[in-house]
């Protein structure tokens, strides 16, 4: 018997699928509220007591928050890139995962904006970035594109809400969902355009800092090379994050939700892009080493500050780059679910590591010869206020999964 049929909310649950009992669902949501409360307290401390409650300081104006921001936006790239593959390159099988990619995208982009709201010293003035926009600043471009793209994601999410069993009964909403679906290629194209720009601009954020030889890069027109590397790394890691979250959702749901061939397409594309990225990133690193050395910043000086030694390079490009690339490229390895999940995990960790390096390590390397190295590590307030969005994301995904038909193959894979 469909255990949900007896539930109070069974009328809202998509037809032909099984969900756990409402009490278990509420218990799960209740448990998630524990860490959420810790995160809320941390956030309120930042707003109420000012940012002295963190471990940030004048040498480290950027820390975990900005690294996490860049990281989640890169991981959220799965949304626009899957949309690009599905609607623009017409890879039809991906229709079975594109909805969920949008859900993950919303979670990531909402998190990024919320984290920025805590990170800035005067949150009530956040709108100045739009009002007094400096068109030469990469951060301005990021702010505009992220906000616009978040709206695009919400529009992409809207038809999913309208497809809820009860809402869909209303003719107007049914029609609206239909029209939105028809307009989806256009909406996806807008999303792709915006995403390319803000993913790139995020790379430009460290890349234009010509006072910081570790991060600064020359480039093409107004865009430093990091602009392009960030786009590439985001589209290489984003699909892996989508696979990872899908896998976790399947584990919690205790059933398959997406067919393996669909996952395999994403994994394969991700693997190939990762290889291209690794090659270009290596060229960029080698080239920059030679340039920076000439103007007085020997390569060794970038890695002379414990704990930011050469192991950082080995970890980022080797363990978190080459290993997942090998797994994702091999058809046989991809078929092995455990290996695939490990590859996705490493790939996502690699992108996070890269964003940390490009923000925090950039600030670690002393520039003046008489400057001393100081270390930074985040404190619990920073961790809790960042992880808050992981828990909120889990709640968001749980509710979406329970009430909206986001996995078109679920019925077929799990006949009642």
């Amino acid at each position, binding site marked *: 018997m469909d255990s949900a049929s007896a539930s109070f909310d069974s009328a809202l649950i998509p037809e032909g699928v099984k969900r756990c009992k409402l009490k278990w669902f509420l218990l799960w949501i209740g448990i998630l509220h524990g860490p959420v409360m810790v995160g809320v307290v941390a956030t309120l401390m930042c707003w109420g007591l000012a940012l002295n409650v963190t471990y940030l*300081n004048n040498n480290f104006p950027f820390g975990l928050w900005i690294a996490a921001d860049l990281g989640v936006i890169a991981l959220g790239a799965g949304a626009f890139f899957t949309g690009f593959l599905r609607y623009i390159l017409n890879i039809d099988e991906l229709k079975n995962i594109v909805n969920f990619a949008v859900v993950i995208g919303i979670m990531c982009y909402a998190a990024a904006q919320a984290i920025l709201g805590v990170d800035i010293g005067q949150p009530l003035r956040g709108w100045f*970035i739009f009002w007094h926009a400096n068109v030469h600043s990469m951060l301005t471009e990021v702010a505009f594109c992220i906000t616009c793209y978040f709206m695009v994601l919400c529009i992409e999410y809207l038809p999913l809400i309208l497809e809820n069993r009860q809402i869909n009964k209303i003719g107007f909403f049914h029609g609206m969902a239909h029209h939105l679906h028809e307009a989806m290629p256009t909406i996806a194209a807008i999303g792709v355009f915006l995403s390319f720009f803000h993913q790139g601009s995020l790379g430009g954020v460290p890349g234009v800092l*010509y006072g910081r030889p570790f991060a600064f890069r020359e480039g093409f027109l107004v865009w430093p090379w990091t602009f392009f590397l960030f786009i590439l790394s985001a589209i290489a890691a984003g699909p892996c994050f989508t696979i990872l979250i899908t896998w976790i959702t399947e584990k919690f749901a205790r059933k398959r939700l997406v067919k393996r061939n669909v996952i395999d397409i994403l994994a394969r594309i991700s693997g190939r892009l990762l290889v291209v990225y690794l090659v270009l990133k290596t060229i960029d690193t080698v080239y920059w080493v030679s340039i920076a050395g000439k103007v007085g910043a020997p390569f060794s000086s970038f890695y002379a500050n414990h704990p930011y030694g050469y192991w950082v390079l080995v970890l980022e490009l080797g363990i978190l780059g080459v290993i997942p690339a090998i797994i994702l490229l091999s058809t046989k390895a991809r078929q092995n679910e455990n290996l695939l999940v490990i590859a996705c995990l490493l790939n996502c960790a690699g992108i996070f590591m890269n964003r940390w390096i490009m923000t925090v390590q950039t600030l670690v390397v002393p520039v003046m010869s008489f400057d001393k190295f100081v270390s930074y590590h985040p404190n619990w307030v920073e961790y809790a206020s960042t992880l808050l969005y992981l828990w909120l994301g889990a709640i968001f995904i749980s509710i979406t999964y329970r009430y909206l038909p986001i996995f078109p193959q679920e019925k077929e894979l799990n006949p009642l």
Partner: protein
Amino acid sequence: MLRNARQAGLEPIIPSFQYSIIPWPRPGFSLCGILHLLSHQGGPGFSFGGIVQLLSRQGGPIAKRSEASFYEGVTMKEAHHKGHGKTYKYGMVVDLDKCTGCGACMVACMAENNLPFRKDNSDRLRSSLWMRVYKISNGLPFPDMEISYIPRPCQHCEGHGHHAATPCVSVCPACATDYSHETGIVSQIYTRCFGCRYCMAACPYHVRIFNWWDPTWPKGMEKYLNPDVSVRMRGVVEKCSFCYHRLQRARNKAYAEGRREIHEDEYQTACTQACPAGAITFGDLDNPEHKVYELKKSRYAFRLLEELGTNPKVYYVSTRDWVRKAGDVYTGKKGNDVMPA
């Protein structure tokens, strides 16, 4: 934190005031405040606020009169952006062979510019200092050991070549910091800064500091604050302004006396005047009549991190090789023998 500050006898100027969407120190929400904000946020570049100002023709007769007053034929805004009319390049030359590291410049700067401090101000990474004196050594054992002190205000970078913009100015997303082509001074608009700290990441000199706390002073000391300098609220970035308010004061005086030029000694920064050794000289780097004009040409003159292309307006002079090496390159290209003291 606030409670601790109170216990320590340190009182915030306006204790309840923490965030502001209107120019400080007017607490609370008000429509007037918002209109004020829209119309008075004078600043560089493109801005919706500027458009509103243009449309509403705000600014008032006083602002108009003083804008038109000092510059013939051009408004202050035009002079600021394009450097129309007469331009100046205010800068500093610091003789490191004279500097004794006494710190008088730091203290004078704090008093002049209303820098807040806490009971325990020893955390170098979070304390507020616009002028910081670094101590460096040649790293040799006694008796060859030598010490030098490097006073470091904002370098008021101009940028050049590929980097035609000031590092911190080009990155600020809200146009809250600006390079004046008319004076060569890099300004900071506290009421516009929203504390993203991108400019801090961009500045290689660690000049910019963030207000991690609400500003506090020991009880009674708020009566000694400089009325010419606005006090900064929590959550915004601040930095050395070359005592810009002194330039404004000097100009007002000149205007009142019917002059268009100010003399060298009419505009001097607080640190320059406070230095007992006379190590700091300040003036217009482009004006042959000012002392800095010749001093900066010394064969012993250098600037910090010249190779990055920041093009600073603070020059240092030292006859000691190792001191120059420590300053004009980074990460030890020529200065491997330089050790932080």
